[in-house]
């Protein structure tokens, strides 16, 4: 199943963006604040967020978190902001507009996190409390297992390197289990 989120669902708090950029919100000057606002709006324009999700009784052993032991149902979901945001960040970097590129990258990371959080809440509304949200790279699941997840979900538009890095870059794989 795929889900196309509305704007609010992937809009991160500016506080989080500033934190990712290593700046305290209250110390931000007008110039920098305006720049972040500009980039924020631009990020929304270049993002095409999408979530693929499926309910499984079981998942392959290699991607099964230890904390999920005993769960009866697992939802795996893959979220992405799409490829255009990558292109835009790259363009800034190539043009030596490093600050813009850095802000957009920080925004995109936080936007993806905001999207995961919104979808997480949505799933819990449907299925109840569940385990905490889990992604490869944490606990006992190797980040390279992203490949397994993408294969399991049969998503052709996402490419996974052997390293576990995914293209589009602003993509994550997540799981939540229910007892």
């Amino acid at each position, binding site marked *: 199943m795929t889900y196309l989120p509305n704007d609010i669902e992937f809009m991160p708090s500016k506080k989080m963006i500033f934190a990712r950029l290593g700046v305290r919100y*209250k110390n931000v000057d007008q110039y920098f604040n305006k720049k972040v606002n500009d980039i924020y709006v631009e990020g929304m324009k270049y993002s095409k967020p999408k979530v693929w999700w499926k309910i499984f009784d079981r998942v392959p052993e290699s991607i099964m978190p230890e904390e999920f032991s005993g769960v009866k149902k697992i939802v795996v979901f893959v979220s992405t902001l799409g490829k255009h945001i990558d292109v835009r960040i790259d363009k800034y970097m190539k043009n030596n507009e490093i600050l813009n590129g850095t802000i957009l990258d920080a925004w995109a990371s936080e936007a993806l996190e905001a999207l995961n959080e919104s979808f997480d809440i949505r799933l819990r509304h449907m299925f109840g409390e569940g385990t905490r949200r889990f992604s490869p790279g944490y606990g006992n699941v190797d980040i390279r297992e992203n490949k397994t997840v993408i294969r399991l979900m049969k998503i052709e538009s996402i490419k996974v390197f052997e390293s576990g890095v995914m293209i589009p870059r602003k993509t994550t794989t997540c799981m939540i289990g229910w007892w």
Partner: protein
Amino acid sequence: MILTRKEFLGLLNERIHYLDGAYGTEFFRSGFKGVIEILNIENKEMVYSLQKAYVEAGVDFLLTNTFSANRLKLETLKVNYDLRDINYNAVKIAKMAAANKNVYILGDISSTGHFIKPFGEISFNEAYDVFKEQSEILLNAGVDGFIIETISDLKELKAAILAIRDLDDDIPIIAHMTFNKNGVSVTGTSVEIFVTLLNDLDVDVIGTNCTLAPEELVPVFKKISEYSKKPVSVEPNAGKPRLQRDGSVIYKVSRERFAICMEDFIEMGSNIIGGCCGTSPDHIKFMIEFLGKVKSKKRNILLKEFVSSRTKIKSTEPFLIIGEKINASGKKNFQRKIREKNTEKIVELAITQEQEGAHVLDVNLGIEKLLESSHFTTVINELDKVSSLPLSLDIQQYEFMEEALKEYVGRPIINSSTCKTEQLDKAIYLLKRYGGILILLTMKDKIPKTAKERAEIAKNAIKYLEKNGINKERVFVDPLVLPIGAKKDPYVTIEAINILSRSGINTSIGLSNLSFGMPNREALNSAFLALCINEGLSAAILNTSERSTMNVIFGSLMLKGIEITEKKKFFENPIVNMILKKKETDLKREIEKLLEDYSPLQISQDILSKAMEYVGELYSKGEIHLPELILAAETVSPIFEFLNSLIEEKDNKQITTILLATVEGDVHDIGKKIVGTVLKSAGFNIIDLGKDVPANVILSAIKKYNPDILGLSAMMTTTIGKIKEVKDLLKNENIKIPIIAGGASMNGEIAKKFGVFYAKNASDALKLVKKLLKDIEKVIG
């Protein structure tokens, strides 16, 4: 639902609350053109639909559609419907829209559209009555609270607050002012002056709205958030209006950007958030969904105390220098002038004392039995006109003190009260109603002899004041200086200062009493002051001409490790100084001297007009404020008239004529009047056709007066199209004349599309006129 102030503040304590967005721009977007309050009678459904949309967007407070529904504004707008019906229906419609939802109704109050004296034609009491009349209808119709918004004059805001509070002392009030980007209102009041007065006045929330987009409003709101001791609120515009190809007007800031920017206000601790011009239910809905109904952030509030006038603010720390010279006691000539309402000497003393380094001016008009309340209001208004320092109102009779406080713009010193309970009760009432700082004399019926007794009596009075809501930081205790010539011991005062200071109580003295009747007063005063400051004295009413005394202040404080840095506002050009300090006589004398070497035309165009141009630049840079600009214009006007009378007829033809008008359908002309005053003060001949002027009337006037330049003003987004109409009409008639357009809804982009020039403000208009004249000269010459 009926909301008490306690319940209202309880709500704000729980989480951030949301106001609705714009009304006017939304109705205009739907195709309505006209006075939107009429819809409360003619098209209730339209108002209901918009308000319902705001309710569905998730607002907590819905405003009534009554922004302009006060008697004066409706008269200006030529609305014939009954004021009562417009306001009553507004509440009824809002209540229907909010039915069965947890939404409260706020009665929306805004400007009368007229400046209050001294800058306008209406009195404080008239404004008060107009606000009271509207508020009473809204209150009886069942509003849960009030919001006073888009006010640019602190005096008008005070009138509105008092009017509402006098009707109901338990109804919540949100009080807003509107500011320019530099954090100063068009009448010269800074955010700090506004907030520090509103901290005292009986309102529940302090905030700002309109004029600026969210990003521009951040620095303004930051100051509100720092200075306000009460909950804070904000309603920015969705940017500046922009004209579309089809003639409609849009606001640039999208709902997404608006929401993102509004997070800044949450970070700064806002308690209430909404939208002003250009925001729609969509903006508000999106914003609420994005920001959520979270708890307000705790703010770091500045706890310093300030005194202020309309345009000047002074911290009471580290030491307050109060100039004593405006004191008519025992001065027959001075008293006579006051009785005749001749304020020349008072204004002169105000200017001199400021130049000598005073922070505050004590005003004592002498024997009050010979005076009426109008003497006090005249003096206060005249000092307001010259942008004076904050005042210490040294007034004995309670009725006069109340009149003076009503008229005063800013946070004054109330000088003074004894420690008698009846007097303290009166002081409490005045401090709560009008704001300010109190000088408390350490006496009841008699002055205690010992320092301990004086300190004790003051401490008890402060306890009483604090119990009644006046904190001790708002009190300066005067331990009373008595004349040494009458064999009084000055060390009693010094000891009392020591005791009070050690208890964290501010102290102030009337220094010159010490040396009354003695020779070499300056030596005595300065020596005594040094001893007092050493014991912790925090303020003194003194003679600022005494250089030793003034030096002692700086020296004594420096020895305590405190440095006072003084910023003085003097300009190199003596003519500019005379203009800004309203020294009409000196200016005329200077001009007469110049006439020995230059022709009247040369002085008019090359000297006086250039000086005014410089004054305009000072205004543009924010170094002087609107009242000072208007005053400067008023000061030079008679001088120009004098010069013009000397100019020969052939030369008189060289004087440029500028025709001004507010376009048809628009009744706003305060800005245009200011432009006219400034242009006139630069030596131009101004013909003002007034407001709501049809294009064909403008055409006839051009044919009649043959002006060099036409200036048009349009305030509303719905009337800016009329500027194009005038331009097209003149084109059809083959009349070539430069047109300068201005007004809140105009901008450079729209002007360019219309083929006219754009001036943002009066100073801009002056520069533009000069540039245009040079261009014309080049073409002709």
